[in-house]
């Protein structure tokens, strides 16, 4: 029966882990916008080198007034 002590201990630890994850997600603001991330996840990441080369280009564009 002493195995039960250990099992209860582990189950509580696991549950505490989930509670911690929940509290962290609230703190992180995940419950403030539940819609945008669902769209954001569908955008493809672009190849890295491509965006870097564009970066130098975009440096030139820094004053939209003209």
């Amino acid at each position: 029966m002493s195995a039960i002590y250990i099992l209860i201990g582990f189950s509580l630890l696991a549950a505490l882990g989930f509670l911690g994850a929940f509290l962290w997600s609230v703190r992180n603001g995940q419950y403030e916008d539940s819609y945008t991330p669902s769209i954001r996840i569908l955008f493809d990441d672009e190849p890295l080198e491509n965006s870097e080369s564009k970066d130098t280009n975009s440096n030139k564009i820094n004053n939209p007034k003209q």
Partner: protein
Amino acid sequence: MKKTEIKGILREIPEGQRKEDKCHHCGGEFDQGIVEYNEHYFCCTGCRTVFQLLNEGGLEKYYSIEERTGNTVGRFHKDKYAYLENEEIRDGLIDFSDGGVTRVQFYVPGIHCSSCIWLLENLNRLHSGIHQSTVNFVKKTVDVVYKEDDLNLREVVELLAYIGYEPSVSLRDYNKKDRPHTNRSLYYKLGIAGFSFGNIMLLSFPEYLDELSYLSSDFKILFGGLNFLLALPVFLYSSSEYFQSAWKSLRKGYVNIDLPISLGIVALFFRSSYEIFTLTGSGFMDSFTMLVFLLLVGKWYQGRTYQALSFERDYRSYFPLAVNRIRGEKEEAVPVRDLRNGDVIALRNQEILPGDSILLSDSAVVDYSFVSGESTPISKTKGDKVFAGGRIVGELTRFEIQKEVSQSYLTKLWNQAAFQNENTRYESMVNSVSKYFTLFILSVAVLSFMFWYFETGTGVALNIFTSVLIIACPCALALTLPFSFGNTMTFFGKHRFYLKNAQVVESLFRADTVVFDKTGTLTFPGDAAVSFRGELEQEDLSAIRSITRHSTHPLSKIIADHLKQHNVVEISGFREYAGKGVGATVNGIWFKIGSGEFVGANPEVETEETSTVHVSRGDQYLGSFNIRKEYRKDIGNLISDLKSDGLEVHLISGDNAAELENMTRHFERSLIHFDQKPQDKLEYIEKLQSTGKNVVMIGDGLNDAGALKAADVGIAVSDDVYTFTPASDAILDGSELRNISRFIAFSKNVRAIVQLSFLISFLYNVVGLLFAVNGKVTPLFAAVLMPVSSITVVSFITIAIRFLASRKKFDFSP
């Protein structure tokens, strides 16, 4: 940015040869010719420039997520955002600034699709100074983090405006730091209560099944101790607001629902702790944590609101942050609140006059649609007094401020007492019930304590006393209102009637009087019946359409829209005469369209409801357009429905009595009031309330803001609920105005449902109490009764409201 060469030229391409039939950027029509660039067609150079900019920034993907989705790029004056360089204004707008990195949040009304999100979150590829940008699609906000060294706030706003996402910066955005942060504590409390509830359930389970005492006492101590440790944070943290609320109401001398709840919680926790520590029983910790968890779920359900809508807007959401003040030859941006009497200010097209002023320029056209709902602008001439809140239409205009912003005709409305305190005019339904409920429970508890005290002794009597408090804890009762009002709110939302919060349902079913505003509420702002007096030929109609579509004047827009089936012809020499009309040459003949005086016709009497626009061709007077405001469909039926439901229907309007006769067909003569100032409207509502009426006010403009605030339910009618509406308890889509009588009738049915579910939860309580006074309450009994009663009540409410909703026939205007 490198100088943008204008590669595309404005030209006409015949319809048959076009590769695209809509603007590649914004999907707009080619009204003004086509700009061709990189094998794509654009409706204006603005759209083309954005396309080029995005292309060069490697953001051409914008067009592949959703097609032709860009916002039409509005042109803005180059100094429009100069005031953002003012240190004081900048500090008021930003969220924080640290080590050269600044974070600011903008409200961007133009956000409408997934391409918008993608583009706005890739701003750093357009400008390296932008560190990060995050969009909240529902709230239409974008958070921008940028480096102070590389660009300033003005440049950030200009970048956004330049790509078609002009942020709305108003007086309300000022002092963001003072605004409360979103309350996350309910989530924390809910999470902790749910965690403890689930685990205590598991740990209590063995005891329930342990009929033959297989469990050794070691386990009992372990389970009891763990239960106590898990319940402690629920008692100390998750349920704290019930104690606070009960204590607050007691100190104010009344009893709310949180008092019997708090009594139950305290009884549950201390009785259970006593049993655990004295090893006399297993306690009720599972019932206790379940109770708190269910109550918090109810609170969360009730608290869900429409994030995308704003119910709190006052004049500050609409007034500018700064205006250009003229001192000598210099023009500088000053914060609006620093304006003093006698200051001279210059306003450009579409800018808003922040204070009551005297017009210094020769003439001006002022649009008061936000204030009164009247969509036809008013002409003013030099020396006229112009009230704050008007939007300038046309060219640069100068004013001299007569009254400071907070003291103006319109804005001083917000200094009224009605705006200082939240109006809770009557006790909420649940609190008036809980007064008797608490009294009843306490007397049952005390009586049974006394009975058992004389019968057996203190020990048993105390047990019975706490059992009564535990079993009587009104969990189902407390869940009734959140779920019935929450469900009603969802149902109303489907019919484009959006409530600020669930409590509004309760105010709505108490209503016995409905007060309407006229302009913009009963009349439809956009729609107008256009008729022409005189003879016109096809070519004239084409000429008139071609001329009027170039003008921003609302009457021009109505006429151009009315004539949209006619061809567009080439015009030259177009000129807009502020306050008078427009003119242009078509086929060598000079056309004039505008006021009688301008065109050369006999001046005619204009009423509030009709506007006349005269037309001349060369020297020949052709006739006049008569533009009449349309009432919304079915107004007559709506008002007779309201009357037959036993409601009193009033009309208050800021206009003159020109429409009196028309209105007496629907309203009783004694209940119609014209020439009402914003202040009068507020006082009228308060007068009705002082005679014991529960008033619903239905209005639309800022001049109704006082009345909307004072009324028990203020409903703002809007044809686009996401644009400006004054502060109110509810926002109603204009096309659903017809259904307002049905919404009120529905809410009255909800009252019956609420009363029935009160009855059900009382029955459960009575059964529980019968067991409790006889000392038959076991932890298992409590752990079963509580969820069963809550689930019955909640499902009864949900099913009843669904059923009611499916039976109600709503008129859907096409």
